């Protein structure tokens, strides 16, 4: 049999992709469909099946959400609060640090390493180090507050301070990534834009608002979307920073993923947990679409 070059190319292409095609069908798309299926069933994970219950799991979530001090309500409202506290502070801090880093030459590499190191560290190790820093009496931060004459703080031990305290750790851990991306973006802006603006008499403040910020828009959108998704999926830090890993004190730090883990793999309510993951999926999808729609602007100069 004689094949043309193009026909042989087609065969090679499919040989090269065969493993990946199997992977995406079996390990990605089939489980995605199964995830929706699980959420409509009273799923037993060890049998790999369960009776169809329709919308019962969703109804149960809805009913739980109506109860006072329910875990579900706490999980969703906390998750949104992590995003609202975490993403803006992460972006503003990272942009400020990147702008400063763009000014300097000496030691630039040292600073980049320092700011990026937490990003490569396991979230579990990070959680424990900060637990220790946040300790009452013996913790470094409270010792420092004592030293300057300020009152000690309970941090993760208090329902009102726990969530912001954990958010601060998440920002600390993820900051370096945003700094590096911002810095790369700033260095891509052609220097002559600034020169031309300066000749027209623009001051540093105007340069930032009129040139730097608009030209960084694609990067800001990218980091906002990526950052939001990572805060919506927060789990390891919260599980390892809250007492007994339950999202306490008083459910003040629990997240959607933590509730999925607890319902699914501690209480073995798989259908309920599955329905929660489907809701999480739609939440992520909705927020991402909104962000792409409202933050993306084409800037041309």
């Amino acid at each position, binding site marked *: 049999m004689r094949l043309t*070059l193009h026909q042989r190319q087609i065969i090679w292409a499919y040989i090269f*992709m065969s493993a*990946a095609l199997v992977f995406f069908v079996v390990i990605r798309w089939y489980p995605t469909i199964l995830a929706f299926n699980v959420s409509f069933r009273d799923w037993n994970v060890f049998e790999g099946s369960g009776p169809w219950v329709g919308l019962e799991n969703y109804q149960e979530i809805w009913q739980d959400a109506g109860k006072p001090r329910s875990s579900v309500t706490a999980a969703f409202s906390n998750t949104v609060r992590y995003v609202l506290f975490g993403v803006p502070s992460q972006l503003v801090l990272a942009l400020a640090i990147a702008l400063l880093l763009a*000014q300097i*030459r000496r030691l630039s590499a040292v600073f980049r390493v320092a700011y990026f190191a937490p990003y490569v560290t396991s979230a579990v190790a990070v959680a424990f180090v900060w637990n220790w820093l946040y300790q009452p009496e*013996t913790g470094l931060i409270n010792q420092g507050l004592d030293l300057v004459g300020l009152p000690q703080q309970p941090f993760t031990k208090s329902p009102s301070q726990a969530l912001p305290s954990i958010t601060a750790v998440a920002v600390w851990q993820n900051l370096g990534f945003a700094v590096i991306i911002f810095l790369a973006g700033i260095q891509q802006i052609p220097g002559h834009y600034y020169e031309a603006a300066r000749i027209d008499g623009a001051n540093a403040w105007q340069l930032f608002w009129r040139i730097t910020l608009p030209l960084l828009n694609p990067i800001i959108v990218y980091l906002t979307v990526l950052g939001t998704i990572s805060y919506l*999926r927060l789990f*390891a830090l919260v599980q390892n920073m809250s007492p007994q890993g339950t999202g306490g004190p008083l459910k003040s730090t629990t997240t959607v993923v933590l509730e999925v883990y607890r319902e*699914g793999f501690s209480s073995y309510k798989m259908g309920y947990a599955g329905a929660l993951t489907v809701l999480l*999926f739609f939440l992520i999808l909705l927020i991402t679409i909104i962000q792409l729609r409202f933050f993306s602007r084409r800037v041309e100069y």
Partner: protein
Amino acid sequence: MATSAEIGTEGTLQIGEHFKPAQPGSKRRFGWTLLIAYLLLAIGGVCMVTPFFWMILTSVKPAPELVNFSFFPENPTLQNYLNVLNTSSFERWYLNSIIVAAISTSSVVFFDTLVGYTLNKFDFPGKNIIFIGMLGTLMIPTEMLIIPWFTMSVNWNWHIGYTQYWGIAFPGVITAAGIFLMRQFFDGVPNELLDAARMDGMNEFGIWWRIAAPLVKPAIAALAIFNFIGNWNAYLWPLILANSREFYTLPVGLSFFRGESTTHWEKIMTAASLASIPLLIVFLVFQRQIIRGIALTGLKG
């Protein structure tokens, strides 16, 4: 490109000229502006690295020194390390983490590069559908897939004995993001070069392996490093799948270790140091490539 811009400006920097402005020939910058930049960066940098130093300092302190607060250890000791290594299975957890990260990283490097190459350089029916089908999986949060994956693992006995290594690794043996990234990088490989090799009678696999792949080595290195770090630090899925202490990866083992040593902070910090120092060393050794890779992939994405 960030890297070339960096090299371009660095080339203008001469000895004794560290007050040279970031954009040469632009606005005159006074020494004190730069001084403030360094000062702010240094304050931020201290905030970033103090937790690491505090972790290591605590790990070399005898327990009584944690109560009588002193910043530096008065009688530094490695006894905590001996105790933790003797009473836990850290060696085993290291081994598990290395095995799992090695399985997924080598697989990702091979398949993502191959598929990315195929999608860039070959023309075949169904190409768009396949590409969208792969990229579309990026919208599905992995949290939604853990219940289906767990069900599948139970069905196929991937959660028992040594197959747990495969069970922990399988969700990440091919990645859509990596395929997308490599597809972008193969743009830089000229088609004429591949055609010339075809004329010489080289087969398609050989062309990819011997000619195309070596030309994108920096991108492959970045892909390998990120995947290794990501898998090394992966937490939620290994936590669910590994069913006995012997098969915990480092983050999972570390998390359970805390439960066993509740308030012995010197032990917990020793364990956290053991878990995070190897990767921090890897990061310090490869910091230039890692940070450049992040900037590169971030801008491509």
